[in-house]
């Protein structure tokens, strides 16, 4: 695949199954923005950089890296991205109390000595350390904030809300005294702190839902965006939607389609093959009532054991253990559009395991 043509913008979604997702934006004819990071298990090289190299893009043109939230499936490899993209600024949501926030991540980092593969704080601190080497800019993501503004392309954060971040401050105050090196810190509400993003590309727009969920409180999550956002609404609807939280029921609200999206929007999602698996097939049916342009980076994968040495498979079975593999299934969905052509529609390029979801 080639790089986008002059005058085109691109929004590419990379999914891996149970190992995370990453989004790449190409804006204003020269700038790349990378949102989140994922790696192949065992390889540990960021899929986003692999993609950029495959289309011959210049990593020096990556101007911004956004971490929507610190779940392993959104952060793995992000420090490598920061390291290789030497001109990138780094944007993430954080508690207001910078010192307390840094103390928490630094403590979590301290205990992660023997658990590098499992610590999102380690990736996060490594990213900040890389950024610090070049005195880079750490941008706080917060609702209604503009993160990128070049030519007629603009990127806004729609979340987290002020309310959510105050809750994060309180949560940190409770977590810090209980830091135990043997236990991975369990933060309660990372999805609520997800950075949902609105991208304005000339006359076109896209809505990228991260893992944001619908809360019963309209001061946070999707309801806060729907009721209180200063960026979206008032007819500024998007024609492309990255469905939030792998198409889960709690990431869905019909008002998102009614108020924030054009009819029949290009909609794409990454499946997640952990626990019960996402998306629920029933939810795919719900999304298909809103669009016939629904894409997934990989088909839904049913549970099955990992293939390994036969004698070990036999041993596991004889001891009555039931294991299910979190499968790695990578897919790339690239969407391109002419920035200044108001009548243009998204061209979809499907690679690897990605597919269009059809009505049964």
């Amino acid at each position: 695949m080639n790089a986008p043509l002059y005058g085109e913008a691109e929004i590419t979604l990379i999914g891996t199954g149970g190992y995370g997702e990453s989004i790449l934006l190409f804006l204003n004819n020269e700038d790349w923005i990378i949102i989140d990071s994922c790696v192949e298990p065992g390889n540990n090289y960021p899929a986003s950089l692999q993609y950029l190299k495959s289309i011959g893009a210049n990593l020096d043109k990556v101007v911004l890296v956004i971490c929507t939230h610190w779940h392993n499936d959104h952060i793995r490899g992000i420090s490598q991205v920061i390291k290789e993209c030497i001109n990138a600024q780094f944007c993430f949501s954080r508690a207001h109390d910078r010192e307390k926030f840094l103390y928490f991540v630094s403590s979590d980092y301290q205990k992660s000595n023997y658990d590098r593969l499992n610590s999102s704080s380690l990736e996060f601190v490594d990213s900040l350390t890389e950024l610090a080497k070049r005195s880079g800019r750490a941008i706080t993501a917060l609702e209604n904030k503009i993160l990128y503004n070049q030519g007629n392309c603009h990127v806004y954060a729609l979340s987290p809300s002020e309310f959510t971040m105050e809750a994060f401050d309180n949560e940190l105050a409770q977590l810090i005294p209980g830091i135990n090196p043997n236990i991975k810190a369990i933060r309660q509400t990372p999805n609520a702190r997800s950075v949902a993003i609105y991208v304005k590309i000339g006359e076109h727009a896209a809505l990228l839902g991260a893992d944001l969920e619908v809360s019963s409180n309209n001061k946070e999550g999707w309801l806060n965006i729907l009721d209180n956002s200063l960026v979206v609404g008032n007819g500024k609807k998007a024609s492309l939607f990255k469905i939030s939280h792998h198409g889960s029921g709690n990431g869905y609200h019909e008002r998102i389609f009614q108020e924030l999206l054009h009819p029949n929007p290009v909609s794409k999602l990454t499946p997640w093959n952990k626990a019960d698996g996402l998306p629920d097939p029933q939810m795919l049916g719900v999304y298909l009532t809103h669009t016939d342009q629904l894409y997934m980076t990989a088909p839904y994968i049913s549970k099955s054991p990992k293939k390994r040495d036969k004698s070990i498979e036999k041993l596991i079975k004889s001891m009555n253990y039931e294991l299910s593999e979190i499968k790695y299934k990578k897919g790339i969905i690239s969407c391109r559009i002419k920035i200044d052509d108001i009548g243009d529609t998204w061209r979809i390029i499907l690679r690897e395991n990605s597919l269009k979801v059809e009505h049964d």
Partner: protein
Amino acid sequence: MLDDRLQVYQLSVVLIGNFNPIIIQPFWLASKKLIREKEAEKAKVQIIHKEIVRFELDWAFIEVKKDRFEIRTTQLPYFEPLRDLVAGIFKLLTETPISMMGINHSKSFVLRDEDHHYEIGNKLVNLNLWEESLDDPRLFHLQIIEHKRKDQYPGMYVVIIEPPKQELNIKYGVEIKMNDHYELGQGQTGRNGEILDILEKNWKYSSDRANEIIENIRTKLNF
């Protein structure tokens, strides 16, 4: 990687420095919650003395002398707990100077028969060179050293190939050992030095490197 020829995989960590042996004894480890209390109670103590401490847990053998610390196990389930135990001990003994560390991998393999055994020795060293002076030359012990490591640390790799330990009762076999050796420099300690860092970052590398070396030579020797 699982294979039928592999009989025993032994792992050890050796530290060279200045130790106070008597501290490192089973009940101290248990009091610091580095091992279970029950494991301390059941430990088979050979000696606890100012000069030398030597005991066995169910899963590891530990020997501490004033200039040398060694822990080893032949029980694969405890490879990572062994690493955590070393790290835990020297995280607590913050002022202990450590200058060198070896992560040692040793694998004992079973061979088909005597011919196979001889053939491997002959491939490793051309035994024909000796036929005029020795009636039945055999390779007993081979030691190969690579003085420059492939990573950023000072140190070396040492590979030894020799017959397996007698206790294993392997009639025809071979033991391949890899010493992943790190020179930490004078005055390094567990806390401020590189040891925890190396254990953390190079643990997997060390076993991957040992396996790479062992598997490469096995492929070349066809066993």
